[in-house]
């Protein structure tokens, strides 16, 4: 039976450098401390619920707290406060039980460099108590599936990034976990390998398994995930299905405009155009216009601008997307 994942009000403050990519916001050190250590607030009350058997995604920019969240759910990071559950098991209290249920693909490959590709899989199976014969058979199947059979007898030190990533995923699947966690699985992969990866994830999900992944790639979140949360500064800022979330952007289309100058009058006139839902001033010459139409609005925008003596100098139109949603909530691009 498929298993869900839940977190409740997770908070995490690192008093030393956070591990790997899990960086967050710098907070002020406690004032009375004799030796003030930099305190980094990575999670600030993050709650989420992953339903059994779905592909769930945490979308957010680097340093948003995605890796820390995955770290906590997979027993690798201790919370400052808050709790997490995998199925019925509270992660911190029942670590060994939780570890049996989960498979983890880390952001940075952590393959055992002293072993060959095939041995990595077989030993991983042995750690989970799978008998050697069964482990070897499963290893061969996965090596075949991930197109690594011809390299199975080699040490992994010389593997390319894509090969290491595929082997990491194969390893995470060796013990047939109920929940598969993938931290930025497609970072650094070429488009072909990325598509292979997505197929593999979908196929695994169709076996009734839950998949949780983090990404800062909107396309990945959009095409792969059934539900997602958008995370920024250690908090969930939006959640839902990709379609629901995109629909929640006022109008759907985003027009990022630049003028010779930006005046309050111009903002007001833009707001009055048919189809415009929301206008937000942007630095001294720009404006973000959320509207339910895109290109057809430009001629009217240009004439309004000319009318107030602020010539339109640059236009960028985006269709409804998660990127726009993120921009709408934070004022920043996901890539910033």
């Amino acid at each position, binding site marked *: 039976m498929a298993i869900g994942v839940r977190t409740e009000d997770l908070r995490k403050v690192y008093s030393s450098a956070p591990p790997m990519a899990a960086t967050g916001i710098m907070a002020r050190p406690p004032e009375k401390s004799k030796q003030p250590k930099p305190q980094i607030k990575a999670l600030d009350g993050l709650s989420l619920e992953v339903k059994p058997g779905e592909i769930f995604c945490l979308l957010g920019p680097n340093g948003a707290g995605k890796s820390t969240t995955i770290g906590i759910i997979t*027993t690798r990071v201790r919370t400052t406060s808050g709790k997490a559950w995998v199925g019925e098991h509270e992660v911190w209290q029942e670590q060994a039980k939780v*570890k049996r249920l989960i498979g983890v693909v880390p952001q940075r490959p952590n393959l055992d460099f*002293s072993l060959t590709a095939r041995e990595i899989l077989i*030993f991983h199976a042995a750690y989970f108590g799978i008998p050697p014969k069964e482990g070897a058979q499963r290893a061969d199947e996965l090596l075949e599936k991930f197109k690594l059979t011809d390299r199975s007898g080699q040490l992994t030190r010389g593997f390319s990034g894509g090969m290491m990533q595929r082997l990491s995923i194969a390893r995470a699947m060796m013990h047939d976990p109920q929940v598969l966690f993938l931290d930025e699985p497609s970072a650094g992969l070429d488009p072909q390998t990325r598509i292979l990866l997505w197929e593999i994830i979908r196929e695994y999900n169709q076996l009734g398994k839950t998949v949780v992944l983090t990404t800062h790639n909107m396309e990945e979140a959009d095409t792969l995930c059934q539900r997602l949360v958008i995370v920024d500064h250690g908090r969930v800022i939006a959640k839902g299905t990709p379609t629901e979330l995109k629909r929640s952007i006022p109008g759907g289309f985003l027009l990022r405009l630049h003028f010779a100058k930006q005046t309050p009058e111009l903002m007001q006139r833009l707001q009055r155009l048919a189809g415009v839902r929301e206008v937000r001033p942007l630095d001294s010459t720009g404006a973000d216009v959320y509207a339910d139409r895109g290109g057809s609005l430009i001629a009217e925008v240009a004439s309004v601008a000319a009318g107030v003596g602020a010539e339109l100098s640059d236009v960028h139109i985006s269709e409804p997307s998660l990127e726009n949603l993120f921009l709408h909530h934070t004022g920043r691009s996901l890539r910033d």
Partner: protein
Amino acid sequence: MNWKAFGAMLVRDAHVARRNVVQIMFQTFLQPLLFVFIFGRVMVGSGYMPPAYKSLLLPGIIAISMVFTGIWAVCMPLIAEFQWTREIEDRLLAPIDISWIAIEKVVAGMLQAIVAGLVVLPLAWLVLRPGVDISIHKPLEFVAMIVLVSLFSATGGLLLGCSMNQQHVGLMFSMVITPMIFFGCTYYPWSALNTFPILQKVVLINPLVYASEGLRAALVPQFPHLSTVAVLLALCLVDILLLMLGLRQFEKKAIS
């Protein structure tokens, strides 16, 4: 406790050690055997050292080989696996309490240290003979010494491996290991320090002193040595302390 996972991790370490056996042999045996040859054969043969020195030297050489094999076997992989390759994460995600992963490392280190001691003993004897007067009169005492010394080496490796940065490995050898060897009563008995009373007290903080003196008591009791009871007690205390500190450091490293 998940014995299957524990056993699989031990098999993994044995498998890796077997793969690197030539390298490990050189690392473990070359230096002690060269030392044995120069001091036991050349210096004694040319009359600069008395013939009895051969027998006195042997327990110290075994202590050095065991202690540094154990430290090396646990410390170096831990430093690399935690800081560089992060490959230990595979085992940290195995369904076993993480303290047991540290204990597995200690057991693997102990086994390597014991093998090193048991191999260097006949090898050194071969280089030194004739005129080496060693015997195992009290096998139980000898076994206890070997186990406690190997545990000291492996727990020391655990603590060092979880406390040090990769860039400080060189410093560790010059600041910790080298003074430990020279003030470890390995090449001379503790009683030889009678003429340096302060130094004689200070070196008692060095656990290698108890390792060398303990093996001397077990193998060449005809030479002066620290009391066996004192040595056993000191080694037990050192082992417990290092294990506790090592496990704490391991957990700190393993969970952020």
